[in-house]
């Protein structure tokens, strides 16, 4: 009798010990992960900023700073939606094409109907395209990367058909001044990107929807089992990705003043690169809006620096590819570090 209760006590004690141990391991893993995650963006950001100031002439001139802030802001807005989708363990390869459709729609409708209806219809078009992505992924169960690869082609075709392959000039000067005007010396697109980013940060970090979204990304099966409506969350995330691509498309149209159907080709790679570089894991389950914002500015700095140094634009492809591979290596190193903490160094 006494023996059995002692054995039980021992068992309880060992279970508790086991729990403490695993909690400690979990905390250590989380610390290591967040350290790597922060280093992954802050170190390159500081290095590039320093290199830019030292090596590139007129890197700190007012016009270059404005230029970098505007370009970084437009990329960041696109990448916020992508952050959501990637945190969900999905992907949206069609952002560049959605953005082209939005920019073309906004150009044509601003010319036809004026400022506000034009902007609204551009964003609405992008939301419809995002919704279509979401429906194909959730209702037809097509894997996200293949669904959005197909819609990348489809939306590009739509954009080219819509403009008939010719550039569209925007005549409305009020619209064209949106991207170039500033408030208290800060460019309007940059302010917009901070505001939208704050909204996304709030949704991801502080709202139930954000917690559910990260849970779905961590493990879709467990999320389903704990009663989360996975398909609804996926659908909303793809709509958000479409909407942010559209908003960025409006700003881009305003910045350029003239749009065409092949606008933003290859944007998906930049968006994915900044999202992953910002510390959002390709394996899902973690979103980092602040990192995405910083990484967008980093990419804008790199591009501006290469431009000022008169490097041919082909090299920007290479820079982007290297940056992406670096970001993904950090991502997989991060996951390996976490795995090591849990499994020991045996494997």
């Amino acid at each position: 009798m006494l023996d059995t209760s002692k054995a039980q006590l021992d068992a309880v004690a060992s279970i508790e010990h086991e729990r403490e141990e695993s909690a400690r391991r979990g905390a250590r893993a989380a610390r290591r992960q967040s350290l790597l995650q922060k280093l992954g963006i802050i170190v390159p950001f500081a290095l590039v900023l320093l290199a830019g100031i030292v090596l590139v002439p007129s890197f700190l001139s007012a016009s270059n700073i404005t230029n970098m802030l505007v370009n970084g802001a437009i990329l960041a807005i696109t990448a916020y939606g992508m952050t959501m989708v990637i945190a969900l363990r999905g992907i949206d390869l069609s952002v560049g094409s959605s953005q082209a459709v939005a920019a073309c729609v906004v150009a044509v409708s601003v010319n036809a109907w004026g400022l506000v209806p034009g902007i609204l219809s551009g964003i609405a078009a992008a939301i419809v395209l995002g919704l279509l992505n979401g429906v194909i992924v959730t209702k037809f169960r097509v894997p996200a990367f293949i669904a959005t690869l197909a819609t990348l082609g489809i939306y590009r075709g739509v954009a080219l058909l819509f403009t008939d392959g010719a550039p569209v000039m925007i005549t409305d000067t009020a619209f064209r001044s949106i991207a170039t005007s500033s408030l208290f010396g800060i460019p309007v697109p940059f302010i917009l990107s901070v505001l939208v980013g704050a909204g996304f940060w709030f949704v991801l970090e502080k709202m139930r929807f954000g917690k559910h979204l990260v849970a779905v990304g961590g493990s879709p099966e467990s999320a389903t089992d704990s009663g989360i409506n996975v398909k609804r969350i996926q659908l909303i995330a793809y709509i958000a990705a479409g909407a942010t691509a559209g908003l960025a498309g409006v700003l881009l149209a305003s910045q350029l003043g003239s749009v065409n159907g092949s606008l933003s080709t290859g944007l998906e790679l930049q968006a994915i690169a900044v999202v992953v570089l910002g510390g959002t894991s390709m394996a899902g389950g973690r979103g980092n809006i602040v990192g995405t914002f910083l990484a967008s500015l980093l990419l804008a700095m790199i591009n501006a620096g290469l431009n000022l140094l008169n490097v041919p634009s082909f090299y920007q492809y290479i820079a982007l590819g290297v940056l992406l591979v670096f970001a993904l290596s950090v991502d997989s190193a991060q996951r390996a570090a976490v795995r090591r903490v849990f499994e020991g160094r045996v494997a």
Partner: protein
Amino acid sequence: MTTTSAITEPETTRTAPTSSVTSTILSFLSHQYLVVVVAVAFIVVGLIKPSFFGAGNIQNILFETAFVGIAACGMVLLITAGLLDLSVAGVIAVSAIAVGTVLPYTNIGMAILLAVVIGAILGLVNGLLVTYVKIAPFIATLGTLYLFLGASFIWTGGKVVTVTSSNFRALTTDSIGFLPYPFLTLIVLAVLTYSLLYRTSFGRTLRAMGSNQRAAELAGMRVNQSKVVVFMVAGACFALAGVFMAGRLSSAEANMATGIEMGVIAAVVVGGTSLRGGRGTVFGTVIGAMLFAVLSKSLNMLGVSSYWQYIVTGAVLVIAVAVGARRRSAAEVRGAG
């Protein structure tokens, strides 16, 4: 008839004895509905536009089939192994530019060999990134797509490399009867790919790791090594497609194959290879490539804006995968991340 069904469905030949001719035909039609679709599309468009049946147009279709099909032979191996390669356009550009650049200095055989070796090396880069840096295949190869494109822009300085060798053009564009050499190459390559996939231990490893990578590892198969090798084989196939495209266009440039990856993947998937991995049909892949060639030439003939081709290809791809997902419900898709 039995050979074609054996190529696509090795299992069915064992289970379905050919009792009567009609049942054989019916089972062939139900398995190979795609052949019927291609034939119907071909005949219908031909009836509307009689010039569609012209020898020149049929040859155009066969050329188009060959370019996409040769690349798709590599892609079907990758998709069967649960992998994917989006860098097709980059590999084609680099290898075609290589051919165009070295042709004036060497003979045709060496130039083609060089292109294929370069393709295999680029495939090696992809394979190492996926296998040892452990980056998801579609994202690693999306990155290398732009790396390879950037490299080819830098190599050519954004200019077009012209292919002047008339012997090379003859080798890549002549035909026996009405069958162009590239198409004959496709047939040979398809037979080789089929043999590789279903008659060798390497192919068995590919199929095993496509259906369950962990199980394949536990069974003692060399999964990592096979992954790298299959990326190299696929890269060589893409490069071969690039060689023929360079001959057909008499030139090579960085933008020559932009967007071809979607057509290649679509041909494989429409042919009946599941994106989940584990099994692949080479015959279906060739027919899939032919379907897109017929569709694109039909749209041309009917005077539809070429922008519609983006839309049609994408829509067919989504529908094919959606139908496959419906048939195989609740299936977790591999290679997605």
